């Protein structure tokens, strides 16, 4: 199912930064070694503040690494990566169509052509008929559909997703998870997905990476052997809850309020 090509390779990635208030050097990410194969869906979960979003920003090139190496992509046809941001990251002054076409316009594609190439992705994420709406006229779920379409339009090899459903209500979130699987299957993308929802990570991913509390490092790399295509009902099966328990115990061991002894119970 997955290619042998490596879509993302991180070696010894480390990030230190200077805390502006205290002037103390902080270690955000201690060490990340991670390979993602083409076509794989990898989710990273971890306690809040563990550096998972920071890692994603490093992969996206928004932050420089202190040490280590990151190689993205293998030189395919489209852009090597694109990011689906958290909520309210659409440009409020652009219509849905202009937002979705934005990545292409940035690459120097003419506005008209960019819009033509954006339209199929608007249809793919289920926003047909909403292309001339402004973001404020869309619900949270629809905004995130547009956000996904914006990243898909540049045809990236690797799709980076930064807690894209975190601010949605529980029902919309589940719906969007199922939609995302449908869209990814259709578009055939490699995905690196950041979340703090354990069930979301297991439901979506082929591999779940569990990160430690800050400074971040990888605690576990768990293969999720649930068959695809997955229905939302898989969340209520025994194998699924077993994965949930496994991940939750790892994360709970990192939470100071709980401590390792209660997590083991």
């Amino acid at each position, binding site marked *: 199912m997955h290619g042998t090509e490596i879509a993302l390779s991180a070696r010894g990635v480390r990030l230190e930064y200077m805390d502006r208030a205290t002037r103390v050097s902080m270690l955000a990410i201690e060490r990340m070694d991670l390979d993602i194969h083409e076509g794989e869906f990898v989710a990273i979960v971890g306690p809040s503040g563990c550096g998972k979003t920071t890692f994603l*920003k490093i992969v*996206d*090139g*928004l932050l420089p690494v202190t040490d280590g190496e990151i190689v993205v992509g293998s030189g395919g046809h489209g*852009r090597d990566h*694109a*990011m689906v*941001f*958290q909520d*309210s*990251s659409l*440009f*409020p*002054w*652009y219509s849905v169509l202009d937002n979705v076409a*934005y*990545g292409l*316009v*940035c*690459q120097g594609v003419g506005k008209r052509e960019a819009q033509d190439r954006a339209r199929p992705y608007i249809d793919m994420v*289920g926003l047909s008929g*909403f292309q001339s*709406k*402004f*973001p*404020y*006229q*869309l*619900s949270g*779920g*629809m905004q995130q559909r547009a956000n996904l379409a*914006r990243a898909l339009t*540049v045809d990236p090899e690797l799709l980076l997703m930064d807690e894209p459903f975190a601010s949605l209500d529980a029902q919309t979130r589940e719906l969007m998870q199922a939609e995302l699987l449908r869209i990814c299957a259709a578009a055939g993308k490699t995905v690196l997905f950041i979340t703090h929802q354990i069930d979301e990570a297991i439901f979506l991913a082929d591999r779940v990476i569990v990160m430690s509390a800050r400074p971040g490092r990888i605690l576990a790399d768990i293969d999720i052997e649930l068959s695809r295509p997955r229905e939302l009902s898989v969340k209520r099966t025994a194998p699924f809850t077993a994965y949930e328990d496994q991940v939750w115990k790892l994360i709970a061991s990192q939470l100071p309020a709980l401590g390792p002894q209660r997590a083991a119970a």
Partner: protein
Amino acid sequence: MTAATGTMRPVRHPSLRRRRSPLARWYRRHERAVLGIVGITAFLLFWELGSRAGVIDAFFFSRPTGILEAAVAEVQLPRFWNDVRVSAFEFFGGFIIAVGLGVPLGLLLGWYRRLSYLVDPWLNLFNSLPRLALLPIIVLWLGLGTEAKLATVFLGAFFSIVIPTVQGVRTVDRRLLDVATSFGASQRRIFTSVVLPATVPFIVTGIRLGIGRALIGVVLAEIYAQTEGLGVMIDRSADTLQAGRMFFGILIFVAAGVISVQGLRRIEESFQRWRPAQEES
């Protein structure tokens, strides 16, 4: 999955609705305008009747019909139209220069932090300085002519345009800048697709403040220089105890301010289609 609508209005049950007369319904729809007009009319009526009854001294306070009479007499004088022309030129001239220099400078200072460190002390100094204090020196340098008045109007409006513009650029949502960077936008595109649209509401606020300050500048410079213009007309009317004529002059400034701000609102609306409809204030 439905689109979120901008504004929603509660719909009354038909049985409740039917009881209202057409007049009452018309009133409810225009309540704001109606009450505003009632407020102004009541005041004018009180003024007029009070003046005629001798409760208000017409000699100092005139009255609405007195102002109207003064206006009719005034508009027949060539000197009046010269004053209008002079004041309008000073206002628009000084104001346009202030916008033309203030907006680009504000954008630059907001975007380039080092440049703003360099200029900030001057900006703060001029902004906290009562610019009235500069009037004598402006006249000393530029004389009593048009240049001095343009400079006064410019100084009045300039800082109220620069400062909000700088603020606007600096408060651009970091996340949106990240999005643009992430998609590989050039510096130029980041500026035109993120910084500029995000700053427009701030620029408009600055320009709105600037209109008021520019009008103050016109009156101030004219009264100080005592050569020509509507400011001189107001001042002379007061000196010669022509209250009606004085109020007419003041009303012209009021009208200029209101019309400019309304015109600006029109422009603003065409820029701001992407914002949810706001209650007019």
